[in-house]
């Protein structure tokens, strides 16, 4: 399964837009790009998923260029409660199950 690469940590301030970029040079045709958020002492929580172009939901946007070798999670106007670890994953469909590989994620620290 293809691997993803993302920054280990990022800092931001309340009210700013935060963009976390993930590299996945060996993405396969059947792979979807999925982002999870994890707070301390909790399990990861699904944020957003996309295949190409742009996807937006109530909490984030996901930008995927045409070659799909990278993707950017955009969090608008972050608050202190957005401090968490964010994981970028490739999710492959077509088999009996949607097996995931988690990397070490990006620790986003939002300061007042």
């Amino acid at each position: 399964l293809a691997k993803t690469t993302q920054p280990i940590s990022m800092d931001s301030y309340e009210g700013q837009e935060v963009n976390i970029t993930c590299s996945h040079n060996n993405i396969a045709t059947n792979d979807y790009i999925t982002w999870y958020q994890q707070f301390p002492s909790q399990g990861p929580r699904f944020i957003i998923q996309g295949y190409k172009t742009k996807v937006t939901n109530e909490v984030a946007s996901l930008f995927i260029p045409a070659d799909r070798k990278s993707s950017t999670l955009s969090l608008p106007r972050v608050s202190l409660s957005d401090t968490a670890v964010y994981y970028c994953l490739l999710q492959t469909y077509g088999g009996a199950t949607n097996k995931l590989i988690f990397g070490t994620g990006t620790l986003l620290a939002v300061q007042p």
Partner: protein
Amino acid sequence: DVKVTQSSRYLVKRTGEKVFLECVQDMDHENMFWYRQDPGLGLRLIYFSYDVKMKEKGDIPEGYSVSREKKERFSLILESASTNQTSMYLCASSLSPQRQSNQPQHFGDGTRLSIL
């Protein structure tokens, strides 16, 4: 709302003990997963199951086994606990891709297991 419940938040066991971690989901999901999470290593898949009585090894199955006798319950078993199995264990579930594509995994809040 999907709920994945792990039986214990904290567990302390001794080396050599047989340890059972239980996970229950209430959304009729076909797929269930067990991960462990360690600092600097992220989440690593131990085992997963895509149907009752069906299981497949993940990336680090050594020292573990699983049981899925009912659709809603997936158990992780440490046959003879060792100190290097001290970790956070996370259970997850999801719909089968055959039923609906683009299905995320839903996680429990984890069991922090310490082996002394």
